[in-house]
């Protein structure tokens, strides 16, 4: 059903994706820096190394489709269409943040762009994403829900309850397992007996495919085929994207549970470098033009930092608002 090499990226998709991936990389680096300065607090999970996944999916997603993910959500909300400055302001706990400073890093939302979180409980987004797909089907739309989860979430019971319901009711949901090899500090082999995560839906009759999550081309190619399958009424599908996070689980994690060699090995397949090399090799752009993209990215991040720094903390009255819908 899904095979590799069906869909290829064109010139402008490469450039568009390079821009997005670079933006996400630099944004997360900036977050790390601001965290170190004490300007971002609490838990902060960076996406560095995994950018090809959300960027590839973003090329496939259509207006009307929803996205939902776990707490490693900065990249997902930015590509859902939320301006970076509102995401950064949220991280800095400002009133201008996308959740008015009440959610923080792990609880980002943007209903306007159909981004439904940002969920701090591992695996909880999976039934919710399945329910979003249920609502789309109930209302006879042709929209899908992209439901992201990590390799840690695949050991949570509610994920499988959701798989069964999605299969039973043929719901338009794509489960994207971002397998970055570690659930916090526990490697996949130490947490899951059967490590081929794309097969986790087999007992529910959900087809699954393994995708090289470090390759923008693979994510786009196989992702697009998966989307076609689901949009044509095939029911849910699972894509396991193998990837790697360069940083620790969160900011407080020095990642001593893995070797330098392992990290370096993954960095040698860096998705951003791969895309850049493709662009240069095929002359989609030259060094000069890429430098211009880099400068624009830097400027837009500086602008977001300035906006967030100058924003106010929430008014104390906000403590008691939004508990209930009036």
């Amino acid at each position, binding site marked *: 059903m899904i095979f590799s090499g069906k869909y290829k990226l064109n010139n402008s998709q490469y450039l568009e994706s390079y821009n997005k991936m670079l933006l996400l990389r630099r944004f997360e680096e900036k977050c790390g820096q601001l965290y170190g300065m004490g300007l971002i607090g609490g838990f902060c999970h960076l996406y560095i190394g995994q950018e090809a996944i959300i960027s590839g999916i973003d090329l496939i997603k259509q207006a009307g489709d*929803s996205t*939902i993910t776990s707490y490693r959500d900065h990249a997902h909300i930015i590509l859902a269409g939320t301006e970076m400055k509102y995401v950064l302001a949220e991280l800095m706990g400002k009133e201008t*943040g*996308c*959740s*008015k*400073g*009440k*959610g923080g890093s792990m*609880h980002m*939302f*943007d*209903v306007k762009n159909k981004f*439904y*979180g*940002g*969920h*701090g*409980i591992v695996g*909880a987004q*999976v*039934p*919710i*994403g*399945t*329910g*979003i*797909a*249920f*609502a*789309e089907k*109930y*209302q006879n739309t042709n929209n899908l*829900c992209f439901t992201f989860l990590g390799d840690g979430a695949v050991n949570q*019971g*509610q994920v499988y*309850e*959701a798989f*069964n*319901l999605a299969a*039973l009711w043929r719901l338009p949901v794509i489960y994207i397992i971002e397998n970055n090899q570690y659930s916090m500090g526990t490697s996949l082999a130490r947490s899951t007996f059967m490590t081929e995560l794309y097969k986790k839906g087999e007992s529910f009759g959900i087809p699954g495919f393994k995708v090289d999550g470090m390759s923008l081309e693979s994510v786009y190619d196989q992702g697009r085929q998966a989307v076609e399958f689901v949009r044509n009424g095939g029911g849910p599908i699972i894509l396991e994207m193998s990837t790697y996070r360069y940083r620790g689980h969160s900011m407080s994690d020095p990642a001593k549970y893995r070797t330098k060699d392992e990290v370096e090995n993954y960095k040698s397949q860096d998705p951003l470098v791969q895309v850049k090399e493709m662009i240069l090799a095929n002359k989609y752009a030259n060094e000069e033009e890429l430098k211009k993209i880099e400068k624009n990215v830097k400027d837009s991040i500086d602008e977001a930092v300035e906006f967030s720094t100058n924003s106010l903390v929430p008014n104390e009255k906000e403590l008691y*608002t*939004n*508990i*209930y*819908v009036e």
Partner: protein
Amino acid sequence: MSQITVRDALRDAMQEEMLKDDKVFVMGEEVGQYQGAYKVTQGLLERFGAERVVDTPITEHGFAGLAIGAAFLGLRPIVEFMTFNFSMQAIDQIINSAAKTHYMSGGQIECPIVFRGPNGAASRVAAQHSQNFAACYSHIPGLKVVAPYSAEDHKGLLITAIRDNNPIIFLENEILYGHSFEIPDIVEPIPFGQAKKLVEGDDVTIVAFSLQVKLALDATINLQDTGINCEVIDLRTIKPLDIETILDSVRKTNRLVIIEEGWFFAGVGASIASMVMSRAFDYLDAPIEIISAKDVPLPYAVNLEKLALPTIEDVISAVQRVCYI
């Protein structure tokens, strides 16, 4: 006026709202083809079809989370738990997703959902099937908790719950399902946060909710013979709590007895007692009495079960204690 059971009043409320709004649907175990484990959804499948009366597998965490997702997108699910004991399987989704997301999203996401089903002790079903979760759910900001007694209140409050844009915990009672009450031909939605004075009296205020209201009413009749006139207040909604009606009554009677079927510690009664103490301390002529379940898992044996739950004798003696009789 006509007679109706609580069971039928609940069904009528759902039916009326489903006729009005296509976004309202019912989901749960055995709600469709089986017609409801306690027959509360009787006839809804025939009327509305399987798209809107959705039978689920036994998968509470899964379907609660799924329904919350559907509510995030604007549908208005009514999720039936066969009993609220099984809602413990779904407690993460109810607390962490349904209750908090409106706040965490800075008001962007709304979760218009009703979780309903029988709560508390039924009869002889022992510890895992006999828990009262009124206090547990009332503890959580973001949830509203409703626990009616009469048929009219069940109907009027369920209509309000379905129309509310917040997650609602609607606590029913298996024993009450078969009880019949007078009901007007047209039941208007009943606002949350309004307790109802069922009996006027000057001597003692008795506060109760759900099935325990019957205990209060029976004790009141009994006590009248001894010359004690109780004022009975049915809370109807626990959160938001109508503390003003309780305070007004206590300022008149100067004595308060609270009945709850749940456990004493960190209970609904304890919270009410604390509020009354801080706002009407000088009006109290006796310490507040709380009649609750004993601090034990509910046993099966008929004699032990009776010992564990509030009884009319408990209520009568509490009233007598606060009257120093």
